[in-house]
């Protein structure tokens, strides 16, 4: 029995080593940040939301973009809990600063950079990602090429700043060097018998995640935190590759 436990321990240590070699932050501080995502944490490598990486959000419509920005703001509130400043870069910004307060982000701690061209947005984002005094960098873009995303990834690897690329109305969903790809959609809010509009209710689809398991979850933003609704959470789209199947023997 003890032999088995020892092996498990060795495997866990090796997994952690592989993750750190792949550029994932597996240090103790990454586990301290609890984003309140609950069961979704199991989908992430190492069981914690990858900070110090770039996440990609894709929003095809205006309403999805609003939902994605809300979800982003919820994540930012955890990233900025210890203080710090966030950079919000956009070429066509619609974000209304006071609306961030509902998601626990102090709007005066966000610096908005409203650039004229998307190329400038990429340059600003790269500069921001190199500055490790920032809590996070968010950029709203339409299109970005793989090579450009790799530059951002390289900047993040040394500074360990978390970056969010929010692509709105992009022409094609090309592959990027980002750690994950998300799609957020609004869902009809649950009010039960009561009239009126309920709490923000979102469907969060993790389309891609490096070394993790994609899936779909549903969250409600309630009382300043995410609340998972487990009964409605659908099964993982692709069944995960089990440990046994990987042995090609």
């Amino acid at each position, binding site marked *: 029995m003890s032999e088995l436990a020892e092996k498990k321990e060795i495997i866990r240590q090796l997994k952690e080593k592989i993750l750190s070699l792949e550029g994932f932050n597996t240090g103790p501080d990454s586990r301290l940040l609890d984003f309140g995502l609950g069961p979704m944490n199991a989908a992430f490598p190492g069981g914690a939301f990858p900070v110090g990486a770039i996440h990609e959000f894709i929003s095809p419509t205006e309403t999805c973009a609003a939902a994605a920005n809300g979800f982003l703001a919820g994540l930012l509130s955890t990233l900025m809990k210890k203080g710090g400043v966030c950079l919000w870069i956009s070429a066509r910004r*619609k974000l209304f600063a006071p609306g961030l307060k*509902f998601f626990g982000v102090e709007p005066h701690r966000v610096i908005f950079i409203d650039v004229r061209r998307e190329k400038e947005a990429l340059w600003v984002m790269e500069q921001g990602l190199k500055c490790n005094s920032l809590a996070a960098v968010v950029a709203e873009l339409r299109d970005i090429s793989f090579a450009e995303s790799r530059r951002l990834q390289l900047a993040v690897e040394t500074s360990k700043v978390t970056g969010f690329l929010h692509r709105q109305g992009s022409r094609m969903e090309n592959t990027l060097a980002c750690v994950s790809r998300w799609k957020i959609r609004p869902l009809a809010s649950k009010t039960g018998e009561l009239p009126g509009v309920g709490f923000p209710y979102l469907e969060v689809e993790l389309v891609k995640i490096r070394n993790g398991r994609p899936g779909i979850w549903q969250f409600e933003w309630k009382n300043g935190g995410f609340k998972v609704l487990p009964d409605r959470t659908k099964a993982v789209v692709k069944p995960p590759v089990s440990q046994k199947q990987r042995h090609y023997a």
Partner: protein
Amino acid sequence: MPRRYLYIWFRYLATDRLAKIRPELRGKPFLLYAPEHGRMVVRASSQNLLKDGISPGMVVADVRAILPSVEVFPADLAAEEKLLGALAEWSICYAPIVATDSPDGLILDISGCPHLWGGELPYLQSITARFRKGGYDVRAAIADTIGTAWAVARYGRNEMIIESGRQAAALFPLPPAALRLDSSTLQRMEKLGFRQIGQFIDIPRLNLRRRFGEAMLIRLEQALGAIPEPLKPVQPAPVYLERLPCMEPIRTATGIEIAMKRLLETLCERFFNEGKGMRTGIFKGYRIDGETVQVSVGTNRASRNAAHLFKLFELKIPEIEPALGIELFTLEATLVEDVSETQEALWSTANRDQAAISELVDNIAGKVGIQAIHRYLPLEHYWPESSVKEVISLEEQPETEWRTDRPRPIHLLSEPEPIEVMVVLPDYPPMHFRYKSELIRIVRADGPERIEQEWWLKSGPPRDYYRVEDESGARYWLFRLGLYGNRKPQWFLHGYFV
């Protein structure tokens, strides 16, 4: 060794200033006026007008009656004061301690200076010649005390240099006004028949004090040198300028970079010693064809970090056109502010972050422009467009809390977009609305939240805001402008909720 003072009197400072700005007035009769008790009173008149008997204190209307051809201009007292300050700063090339004597005089402490010009007479001649060449009519006098120099410069007839210890003799023939007395004392002296200082200089002090008061005695003793008179010297603003001449003309970007780095290092070292930092800086290159090329940068907060400042300048190097070569580089900090060190020590880690962020913001501002950077603080207004204010500084903190009692959207359209709606009853949320030719059915709704125009700022109909949700779960912020009544109110889409 006794102190020596030089007093310079600008007889026509105000008119000389105007004649310098507008050379066509030179030699013409003109005057400057200022309002006084509801009348326009002459403050200064040109030299040739004085001969016609027109002097300061007259009413402009009277002067016009005497001389219809006279030109009049409003006096600019602040500009004259500034000019006097500038002249004082220039005079530092003659003596280290210079003070202004408002409204039209300069006091120079010249102790130990005149021998550099070969004596007091050449010194005096040199300084008056320089001012006359610059277009100012001056009278100057040198004496042991400020009082005597003042008196001789304004009322002296022949000898402008009073030898050491001979103040009393110099003051003897001068009128009492030369003692800088107030007008009531002067009137009393006139009444008593004192036309010259010599008439009362030997009267026992006790009697003088009884008749004219302590102030007059102080002025007399100051002129004679029995009581010291303090001076408030002008402090020229320090110039933060570094120069770097080159042996060979520089034509490459690398060369310019090296020059920039060297200049920044010396300037930042100076900033470090003086506890200052640069806010704006100009880097100039003097080309061998006589042209100058320059680039300037601004920082968000005072900085003395050479590496950071170099990064800001580096972005501008492509704008410098060396042509045949640059032979001299200068770097000047035009706006300099204090950098508080205690603050830095107190907030060591937080401040390091702050410094890094402001350096980042400077960097971004250099590339995309300062107008692209926005930061918002709450304002106590309900009207959504005016509920935030933009701030430039990174340090400014909100005075009030951000409000959370009312729902506010995460996306706000810059301009509300008109929509077509179907409403069952007035004050009810719409059943459905059409936006960009798409029909959106509303399932749930909250509201209305009525926001009135702030009448002290702007008048107009109120807005009734509704938070609505459609079948797919998308949440919108709609409003109706105005009320149902005679005219059909208009509906708008203003934002998106999460």
